[in-house]
């Protein structure tokens, strides 16, 4: 396990390093100088030069990359060109919306998918199975931002149960804050729940054919007891893997869903920063999201190797 762990950590660090290089190089190709952009068309050349020096733009590209990278390692993401505030602070504020939103959606997706997947697998070929599978087909095909619009139309415009957008803020209480995240989380969770239901169902069906399931039935457990006590635990490996992988889709999805509901999260921050050419923010947020995706994949790999010893010794 230790050798496996060391190899995975080295590979993780290499991936992050190369990813940071790609993000930096791609964003730095951008034509136009942030300093001139910030000061406007009529700025004096010496003012622009002074601002460039202040922002560190006069350094060579390799030097800027090194300072960006070492800064990030110490939690310093640089200073926003537009707002003149530390990027780390801006990101932290937004993270308090994006992270709870993603986790909320993940929880909803699990709460929907587990019972639905178990129901479909235990009634294989029956009416419930067909109905659940039909819904999952639909759930995968519905774009979540469209589903979000429909939710707004029904629950905000027609029924008035929720607000159509905006974030109440954590200072207005957990209930209010979670309430404003509820419709976005449902919209975000739908396609993930549909995928997870299908994985849950097929993982359970795979396990149901195993010898130990026959043994469980032979020793007198009902089909239902055998399913809940033995099959479910064994089906968890593929299900947990998919839950981990879904995190990266949730992050990407959240960027779009935040736009539908005007939530001031990381997604909104990215688009605002692109519009204002605040590239240091774009660079840092993209890198942060890549970091999150890579870390979750890494943790899932570790959990997987921990559960299934064969994988530790496999080449990959």
């Amino acid at each position, binding site marked *: 396990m230790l050798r496996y762990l060391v190899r995975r950590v080295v590979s993780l660090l290499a991936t992050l390093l190369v990813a940071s290089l790609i993000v930096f190089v791609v964003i730095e190709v951008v034509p136009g100088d942030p300093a001139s952009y910030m000061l406007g068309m009529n700025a004096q050349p010496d003012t622009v030069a002074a601002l460039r020096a202040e922002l560190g733009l006069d350094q060579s590209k390799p030097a800027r990359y090194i300072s960006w990278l070492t800064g990030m390692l110490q939690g310093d993401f640089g200073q926003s060109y537009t707002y003149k505030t530390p990027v780390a602070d801006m990101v932290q504020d937004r993270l308090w919306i994006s992270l709870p939103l993603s986790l909320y959606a993940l929880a909803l997706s699990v709460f929907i998918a587990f019972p639905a997947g178990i129901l479909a697998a235990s009634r294989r070929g029956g009416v419930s199975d067909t109905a659940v599978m039909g819904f999952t087909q639909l759930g995968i095909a519905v*774009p979540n931002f469209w589903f979000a619009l429909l939710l707004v139309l029904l629950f905000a415009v027609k029924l008035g149960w929720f607000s159509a957008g905006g974030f109440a803020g954590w200072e207005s209480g957990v209930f209010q804050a979670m309430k404003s995240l509820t419709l976005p989380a449902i919209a975000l969770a739908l396609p993930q729940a549909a995928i997870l239901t299908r994985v849950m169902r097929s993982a359970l069906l795979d396990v149901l054919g195993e010898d130990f399931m026959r043994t469980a039935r032979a020793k007198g457990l009902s089909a239902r007891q055998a399913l809940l006590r033995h099959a479910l635990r064994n089906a968890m490996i593929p299900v947990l893997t998919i839950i981990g992988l879904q995190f990266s*889709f949730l992050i*990407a999805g959240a960027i*779009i869903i935040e736009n539908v509901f005007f939530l001031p999260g990381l997604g909104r921050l990215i688009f605002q920063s692109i519009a204002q050419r605040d590239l240091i923010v774009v660079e840092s947020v993209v890198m942060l999201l890549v970091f999150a995706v890579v870390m979750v994949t890494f943790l899932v790999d570790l959990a997987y190797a921990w559960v299934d010893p064969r994988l530790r010794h496999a080449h990959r």
Partner: protein
Amino acid sequence: MKLQTVLPGALLVLLVLAGALLSYVWTPFEVTTLDIRNKLDTPGATHWLGTDHLGRDILSMLMVGARTSIAVALVAVGIGMGVGVPLGLLAAAQRQSWVDELIMRGNDLVFAFPALLIAIMITAVFGPGAVNAIIAIGIFNIPVFARLTRGATLSLWTREFVLAARVAGKGALRISVEHLLPNITNLLIVQGTIQFSLGILAEAGLSYVGLGAQPPIPSWGRMLADSQTLITLAPHLALFPGLAIVITVLGLNLLGDGLRDWLDPRLRRER
């Protein structure tokens, strides 16, 4: 063959394709014609699906928008296959070597960037547009096809027909192209269908946030974005583009599922 999934799937896809192709020669109205007097018309005899806030005919926009969606997703699948399949074949041919390792680690790296993040970076540099959406979704598709190809061809390398080809003096390149590629075509077609439907969804998402096709080119995602502020006044604006996306993606998924069952005898037996 699972006719009950392939048939509805194929019909839905054909419906969308027909609409897109028809739009080259005929649309009920010109998509660029603004008719402010008839703006926000509800569906009726003149405008079957109503008009938008500038009086443009929704059905015509949907038909032309289908072209954008299909073109973006199709080219993105082409990029994914065109780059990913050769890489996968190469990795399998050079299995356990540094080339294989490099290709697979490169794949992992691309997987770390969801398509939306790639699109965001490209947009930050080159500005929004359909071509950038294609590149972003295409790059995202590359590791999918590379992994699939490598995984599927690895086991084939130990099979007798490959050994026979080697004895006959064929090199790795000829074996890959002449013997392995035809063996994984079915897999590639099925995966291609799935990536195509994901591409339609991704394109819609990108144009919804303004990173895809730019006005005046109609796109389904853009139409949904425009409908958002008018959702209380004209809900039909949000309804039809969304339905168009669902129909296309559902059709492609059903087609992909059905094709997989049909092309893989093991699955045909299991289900």
